[in-house]
């Protein structure tokens, strides 16, 4: 127990110790001020002994409120009023701001009141208790381990039973793991393909077929394969640039009729739609992580975390003037994955 050297004991501005007063069943005793009483440590002892006896005498006089009590009570009352006001606000149709503020006042009032009140519950002296060692006594520990080992002997000696039950357990585990396979289809080649096919027209998100003449130089349009507007992988950017400026690999020059180039809109970094086009520098920028791709040079990444160009879609303009794909993307669109190059 702590010694009675508490320097703060006499400094209490509330002039009573509720604990002692309460348990002594006599408010007068409590109002003498803490200094008049024995040390708090003793008071603690007395408290607990007294509790038994005090309960037997049924009537306990209430404590007259102190100034601090009155403030605390005021806080509680404010909370109560705010609660009623919240009810009114709700019934009259509700208002998020008023609801939040009033709820905050109810909760905050109760909280602040409780914290204020708790200060009175704490004596002037800190409570102290021993911290017994966590570990068991050595003999007790030995005894437990020995008992466990000895009582387990009938289990551990049955080699055949142990082996067979282990086998059964393992096979159960394997059987239980199996349904995980049902969580998703096997990836197969799904990540390698989109729904672009030779001759499939480009349409806008709204299903409108795209004619070559719809785009002027510098224009960008998000397009999908006709009839597959929901296929996200297939989202494609159709851009018209000056054919003179294009620096595509030689085998891809045919893929850009009249300066129209089509690149996958799904970023090769983590798959965000590449939604920004800087016309002045002919760069596509992904808004998620700022990967930047040069449109004129086959959408090569020029900045940011993306490592691979946006795949280019081979396209042509059909006899009616509409833009069509001449095949699927030559490589997987979107973010990379383990067997990407297989």
């Amino acid at each position, binding site marked *: 127990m702590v010694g009675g050297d508490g320097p703060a004991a006499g400094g209490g501005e509330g002039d009573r110790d509720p604990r002692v007063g309460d348990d002594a069943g006599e408010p007068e005793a409590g109002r003498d001020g803490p200094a008049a009483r024995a040390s708090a440590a003793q008071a603690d002892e007395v408290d607990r002994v007294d509790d038994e006896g005090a309960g037997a005498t049924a009537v306990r006089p209430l404590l007259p409120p102190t100034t601090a009590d009155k403030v605390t009570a005021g806080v509680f009352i404010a909370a109560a009023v705010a609660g009623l006001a919240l009810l009114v606000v709700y019934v009259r149709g509700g208002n998020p701001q008023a609801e939040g503020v009033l709820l905050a006042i109810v909760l905050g009032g109760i909280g602040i009141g*409780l*914290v204020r*009140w708790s200060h009175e519950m*704490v004596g002037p*002296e800190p409570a102290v208790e*021993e911290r017994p060692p966590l570990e068991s006594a050595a003999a007790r520990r030995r005894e437990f381990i020995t008992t466990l080992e000895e009582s387990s002997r009938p289990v551990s000696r049955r080699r055949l039973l142990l082996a067979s039950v282990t086998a059964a357990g393992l096979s159960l585990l394997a059987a239980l793991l199996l349904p995980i396979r049902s969580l998703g289809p096997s*990836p197969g080649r799904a990540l390698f393909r989109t729904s672009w096919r030779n001759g499939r027209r480009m349409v806008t998100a709204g299903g409108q077929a795209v004619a070559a003449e719809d785009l002027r130089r510098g224009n960008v349009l998000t397009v999908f394969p006709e009839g597959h507007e929901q296929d996200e992988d297939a989202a494609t950017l159709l851009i018209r640039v000056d054919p003179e400026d294009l620096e595509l690999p030689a085998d891809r020059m045919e893929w850009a009729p009249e300066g129209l180039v089509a690149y996958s809109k799904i970023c090769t970094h983590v798959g965000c739609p590449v939604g920004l086009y800087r016309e002045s520098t002919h760069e596509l920028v992904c808004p998620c992580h700022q990967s930047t791709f040069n449109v004129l040079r086959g959408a090569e990444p020029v900045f940011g975390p993306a490592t691979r160009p946006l795949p280019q879609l081979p396209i042509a303009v059909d006899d009616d003037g509409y833009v069509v794909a001449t095949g699927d993307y030559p490589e997987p669109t979107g*973010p990379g*994955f*383990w067997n990407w190059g297989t």
Partner: protein
Amino acid sequence: MLLRRLLGWLDDRVGGARFGSKALEKVFPNHWTFLLGEIALYCFVILVLTGVYLTFFFEPSTREVVYDGDYAPLQGVEMSAAYASSLAISFEVRAGLVMRQMHHWAALLFVASMSVHLMRVFFTGAFRRPRELNWIIGLTLLVLGIGNGFFGYSLLDDLLSGTGVRVAYATALSIPLIGPDLAFAVFGGEFPDESIIPRFYTLHVLILPAIIGLLVAVHLALVWRQRHTQYPGGPRREDNVVGIRAWPGFAMKAAGLMFVTSAVVAALGGLAQINPIWTYGPFRSTEAVAAVTSASQPDWYMGWIDGALRLFPGWETRIGGYMIPNPFYPGVLLPTLAFGVLYLWPWIEARYRKDREPHNLLERPRDAPLRTAIGAAGLAGFVVLFFAGSNDVIAGAFELGPESVTNAFRVLFVVAPLVTFFVTRKICRDLQRSGAKPLQGLPHHRIVREGEELVSLPAEAAPTEEVEHPVP
């Protein structure tokens, strides 16, 4: 009288009066830094209460609907039932918006208070023997809290959170060998699959909260069993606990703190708009893919990973036809390493300091300069990554090129932790030498130094008076 009869009835049947008496008298050390974990606990309580309310109105489905609710700008727009019901909670359910915003704010505060609590435990060495187990549980709670926060805000199926799920999918896809199978199993197939929302819903409202609740119980039971650590000084020794008794002082104070925490969350929920999904628009629509996405930032606790994704240079590994894609390094490897070091820290430190003794007295950060410096360096790296997650916003606000901002952050990510390490270590050592007093809080919460084994101080600098307690 009623209470006596009730307790008597209970004790007749299950006993426990002895435990009850001991419980009432249990002493809890008293310091404001010990309240951080409590705040996290209360945030969890608020999350469960507001969350249950939200489940009554939320429809976890990607079923396509045409919006005809109160929010005029979106009327007639095709969207998922999940998004539509989130709009209904925000605009039509009375008190729904306050509940939704309180839930979101409580989630942000939940992770924040756990993080600050973690820092307190780290920097004061509270994780040392015998509390390694609770360190592990606490870290797991942080991971689960972050995960559940992510699942939660993904449920609304708005354009912003959908982008977040897309990033998560690509990150799962990037794991070598198992990536594609794992991503398809978790997300139900190629992104964006219909099953994502209902799956995340089950995880978010059932599985993860159940695990979190269970671990919280174990975490608290261990604190109860092992008793709380305390700062050295005054009458506080390794073999005692100095503070306030569980009943009524501690219980009432704790209940008060719970209400005050809830009040702050309620005020935020009412006054501070959070995640205004109606301005983002629905995720599941062709228009969404066609739309230009503007700057997108995740909730704060995912910011550092998003920042790492932005900063990591355009590297990837090719092995024949196989590939370790770029997002694997910042998105999987970095968090795994960061949390791996944290998980192992008690053992790393015990080995380095050759200290395997039990500790119930905390260390001041200056008294473990190396640990403090390493922790501060880690925090510096975290802060740089966090702000790097807003490189586009910063570039816009200061009218700088996004490239130069990103490059500056790349340099900072290397330099800031190094500088922080050496500066922190020097400050710690200087403080130790100078014997300067620690920052003092309220007079009755002063931390007092003691003991030659902690610091080499002038002998008279070890005050003995005890001023721990509030005056009634």
